[in-house]
């Protein structure tokens, strides 16, 4: 594909080279019409006709220069050796090639040989392209060159600059000589500057706009890159959280294991058959518990019917509430219906929420955490703390991975939200800065269908 593109570019370049070679031969009528306009200007004493002649000449020679420049650009830029050079060397070579071709062609064809104006135009184009930072873009090069060539062509009709070899081409000399005869040098000076200045300014503005555009693209690319990196980091952090949860599970698994080991040692000592049956049942229970925990963790979609007191016991066993300054209150009705969820995971989610409430900075001396559990279509678990609350500006970002107001990993809340939603529940946060935070978890009641 790239090779094909390169070939097309070279073919276009060669076609342009042929075109600029035959173009001067094809414009005999144009040259004749310009001479006729100059003659009419003399006969009628009309300097307006001179401006028309100058405009036609400038348009033709500008187009010629633009085509030659594009041709050089297409042919040279596809050259491997040329491409490897620095921008300054490339620009220098392009200027030399451009002027060399024109200096040869001027002996055979009617072209405008204005080395000073052409050199300045080419240097200006190179500078503006460099400023635009689009040194490898054909489009930017061409757009800037069109404006500069059109601008610089008007410098040739300014009679005041004749003394310094500007506008020494045959047609320009004729136009300026007639302007002297018609006493309209001032008009040509003014017209020349009136076209030159705004066109030059426009080329500078274009280069600056390209530069701004270039900078914006870089910023967008950088942002995109950063966003990707951030996503990657979030994924890694989440992975770490999972390992953390596995650690917690491994810790939990130790409890039934200790039970099994203890009972096993009793089995060796006991000779009472009745006791053996009791120990055996307990070992069986411990193994079942372990099996249930491992299944819950391995199969995240597996759900069990969980009685609220069982869930609370499981949670309470894993929360560090030995701190005397921590008042931990759980209020619930005993006749609450069970929920259906992945026991280990939903417990871990609620533990994360409670741990969050524990570590948050508190307003008074003692930290108070209340857990209210009641029924309102679903099972509602409210975790209320007397912490300092969350500022309004932070509320929108509170569920984002990595966002934390307490220099923690910022994973607790997003992790809990994900688990609760995976189990068909919802979580809401209500916080007032300086008052406290209430987290509401809504979990679906286990229906008969679900139980089945």
């Amino acid at each position, binding site marked *: 594909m790239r090779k094909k593109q390169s070939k097309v570019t070279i073919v276009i370049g060669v076609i342009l080279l042929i075109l600029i070679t035959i173009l001067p031969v094809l414009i005999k009528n144009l040259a004749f019409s310009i001479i006729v306009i100059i003659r009419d200007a003399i006969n009628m004493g009309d300097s307006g006709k001179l401006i028309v002649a100058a405009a036609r000449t400038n348009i033709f020679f500008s187009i010629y220069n633009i085509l030659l420049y594009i041709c050089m650009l297409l042919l040279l830029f596809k050259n491997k050796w040329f491409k490897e050079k620095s921008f300054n060397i490339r620009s220098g070579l392009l200027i030399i090639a451009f002027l060399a071709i024109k200096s040869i062609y001027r002996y055979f064809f009617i072209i405008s040989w204005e080395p000073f104006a052409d050199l300045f135009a080419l240097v200006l184009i190179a500078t503006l392209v460099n400023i635009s930072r689009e040194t490898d873009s054909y489009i930017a090069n061409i757009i800037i060159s069109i404006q500069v060539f059109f601008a610089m062509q008007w410098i040739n009709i300014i009679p005041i600059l004749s003394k*310094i070899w500007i506008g020494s081409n045959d047609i320009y*000399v004729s136009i300026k000589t007639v302007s002297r005869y018609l006493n309209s040098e001032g008009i040509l000076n003014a017209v020349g500057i009136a076209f030159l200045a705004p066109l030059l300014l426009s080329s500078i503005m274009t280069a600056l706009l390209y530069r701004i555009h270039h900078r914006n693209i870089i910023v967008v690319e950088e942002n995109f890159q950063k966003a990707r990196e951030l996503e990657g980091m979030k994924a890694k952090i989440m992975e770490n959280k999972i390992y953390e949860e596995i650690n917690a599970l491994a810790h939990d698994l130790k409890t039934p294991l200790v039970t099994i080991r203890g009972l096993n040692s009793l089995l060796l000592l006991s000779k009472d058959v009745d006791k053996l049956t009791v120990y055996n049942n307990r070992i069986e229970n411990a193994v079942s518990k372990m099996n249930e925990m491992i299944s819950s963790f391995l199969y995240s979609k597996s759900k069990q019917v969980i009685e609220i007191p069982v869930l609370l016991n499981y949670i309470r066993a894993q929360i560090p509430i030995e701190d005397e300054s921590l008042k931990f209150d759980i209020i619930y009705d005993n006749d609450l219906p069970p929920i259906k969820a992945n026991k280990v995971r939903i417990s871990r989610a609620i533990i994360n929420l409670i741990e969050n409430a524990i570590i948050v900075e508190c307003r008074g001396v003692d930290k108070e955490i209340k857990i209210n559990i009641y029924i309102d279509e679903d099972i509602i678990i409210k975790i209320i703390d007397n912490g300092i609350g969350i500022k309004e500006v932070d509320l929108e970002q509170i569920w984002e991975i990595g966002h934390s107001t307490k220099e923690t990993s910022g994973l607790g809340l997003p992790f809990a939200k994900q688990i609760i939603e995976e189990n068909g529940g919802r979580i809401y946060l209500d916080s007032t800065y300086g008052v406290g935070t209430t987290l509401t978890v809504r979990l679906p009641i286990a229906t008969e269908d679900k139980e089945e």
Partner: protein
Amino acid sequence: MKKISLIKKVGLMLLGFSLTLIILYSIDSMEDKSYKGNIYIPNAMVKEDILITSAGQSTDTYIVKDIANKLMLHNIFMPNAEKIDIENIKSVIMVVGYSSIGEYLNNKDFSQEKARVERFIENAKSDSLPIIMVYIGGKDRRDKETDELLNLVAKKSTFIVSTHEGNYDDTIRTISQKYDVPLSLVRDIQEIKAPLAALYR
């Protein structure tokens, strides 16, 4: 900070361009020769009917034709005049100025134009026609080809009229002295009316 350096870059570039133009312009102005007065033409030196022709096919010939018309000088305008065109003609005005486009539009090259000019001058001289050489192309038109034509026409001319700007390097004065042809240098193109009117008065 970057913005300032960018503005500086563009500003310096434009300043450099302007300074270059000013320096070149000043150097060129220093070379300007002081104004030399016209020679006094007491009596008419040549007669009407005039054939106005070109040596080099520049558009300057149209200007001279326009001036002749404004001076009410009876003239025939033939930029490519040959021997046949000098019948019933009393004098010739040859406007010198090489134009590549002019020659291109007349389907000829410089050597062909030079040969025509040589042929025409010989014929005019053999008919004893006075030739007035006019050069109004200024410094811009002065190149190798124009200088060649100036030499060619001047040596058979009766009188030379040129603008000061055209004589910026004193070439036209040197030529006039070399071929002993009286020369009238005028300040600008408009002023060639005066020597032309005096010559045909």
